[in-house]
């Protein structure tokens, strides 16, 4: 008798334990989703945008500082090298290829990706041509240095 009731008790205990485990798993899953929700909400919280994280404002900050860098760097370029300066700035302004590559990137062909493809060609003509012409000019200048 006592043996049987002991076994039953054991069984009950085991059931309770497994129920508890299930509840714990459920709770942890809930906690998990709650955390995720919290973070995703936090990410899209407008208050962050207002405090200077607006991409356009960040862009403008970078733009203004880069203009100053450009100003001071270019004034130090010796006038004799103004032609190579034009050629190299022309080559680096083809960094627009970054946008062209993204436009040409989708696997499906459509109007945008075809336009992007042509933009890639144009920009890479410029990159190769610009850097090589600069190199040609600079080689000539270097040859005549003492």
């Amino acid at each position, binding site marked *: 008798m006592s043996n049987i009731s002991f076994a039953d008790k054991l069984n009950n205990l085991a059931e309770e334990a497994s129920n508890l485990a299930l509840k714990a798993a459920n709770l942890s899953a809930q906690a998990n989703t709650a955390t995720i929700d919290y973070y995703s909400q936090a990410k899209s919280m407008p208050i962050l945008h207002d405090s200077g994280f607006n991409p356009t404002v960040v*862009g403008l900050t970078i*733009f203004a500082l880069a*203009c100053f*860098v*450009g*100003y001071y*760097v270019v004034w130090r*370029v010796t*006038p*004799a*090298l103004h*032609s*190579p*300066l*034009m*050629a*190299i*700035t*022309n080559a*680096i*302004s083809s*960094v*627009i*290829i*970054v*946008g*062209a*590559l*993204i*436009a040409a*990137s*989708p*696997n499906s062909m459509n109007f945008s*990706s075809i*336009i*992007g493809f*042509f933009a*890639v*060609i*144009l*920009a*890479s*003509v*410029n*990159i*190769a*041509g*610009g850097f*090589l*012409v*600069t*190199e*040609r*000019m600079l*080689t000539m*200048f*270097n*040859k*005549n240095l*003492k």
Partner: protein
Amino acid sequence: MSSTISSFLYLISGICFIIALRGLSHPSTSRAGNYCGVVGMLISIFTTLTLDVVQNYAMITIGLLIGGVIGAIIARKIQMTALPQLVAAFHSLVGLSACFVAIAAFYQPEAYGIGKLGLMKPGALLEVALGLAIGGITFTGSIVAFGKLQGTITSNPLVFSGQHAINALMCGIVITLVILLCFSQSPVAFWLIFFVALTLGFCLVLPIGGADMPIVVSMLNSYSGWAAAGIGFTLSNHLMIITGALVGSSGAILCYIMCKGMNRSFFSVIIGGFGNKSKDFQKSEPASNQISVREGDAGEAALILKKASSIVIVPGYGMAVAQAQHALREMANLLKDRGVVVRYAIHPVAGRMPGHMNVLLAEANVPYEEVLELEEVNSQFEQTDVAFVIGANDVTNPAAKNDPSSPIYGMPILDVENAKSVLFTKRSMAFGYAGVENDLFFRKNTLMLFGDAKKMCEKIIQSLN
């Protein structure tokens, strides 16, 4: 690749571009700078290719290869005298690819994460429209500049009445359309911006004459940078913003230097028609006190050069046209062998693009140290025996200092008049670009050598031997 890593790599490539420009402060560091620029560009391309959105590698590789090969061939084949038109042509490509990227972004904003077709954020639309407009102006403006430099379009200023009003009107239309686009998302407004910008670029450069081309080429250089920055804002790509700002400010500085070299305001250059404005001046009979010019041949020139102990050579666009730089260098070598001190004086606006003469002289192996800028050389003319002016005119005209009524009054000039004697190599007595008489031709110590610059140098070489 995570966006943190890609942003970081874009930053590195931006720094590479800054170092590339910094390298140009002296020829000895310039080539390392150029390589740095190449590395920056490669980093930016590879970073973009590893982004998740990029899938179609086959098409991209084909595009890169086609463009790269064409660019390499052009860069290898091009003659150094054709450099200004090459740079203009390259600017037009940047302008057109900026337009293409703007169009692609407008029709597939999802790829750039800036909304959906017809439902773009007004801010993004504004940036796309600015990139498109500036790109369009750069494209057609550079094509006209290319045509003028190549000689396919007349390099005379083409001015017609009401032109400025029409240009101003077109500017107004573009601005109105941009505002309209931001509120309506209308593709019609988008395409109209494109076409009006194209027309505007065409009309802006057409009235500008040949010798103002250094300013126009610098201006277009600057525009191509602003266009890239505009597209950078659209895509929130900081590398494009940094590079666009660098290129834009570089072009603007060159523009400023060129305008100063001509003592003209940027605005007056854009309004155009320098040659025409001075028509009245030109038509007035040449000064009555003039004596006839003293014309000489190569033999006389050789004699004068032989006797000199120091000469300064003043090259101008005429030297580039005649491709005389090699013959000139040979002549200078012969004189140097005789113990004559030879130097070269470069006016900031000589030629058709900033630094044009320096490149040609470098091509002809003229030592870098012998080539002097205006400020360095002007005080030295007084101790100079012979100033040898080859294919230049307005930049030596003393009227810029003496005659307040002259259209070029106030322009900095090379003081060749202070040299003991002046040799002018010119094709004819024709006026320079400014359309004004040069007093210097009629002075006693001036000898005019009429003919092609290259042939004249070759004849002088024969006489020297």
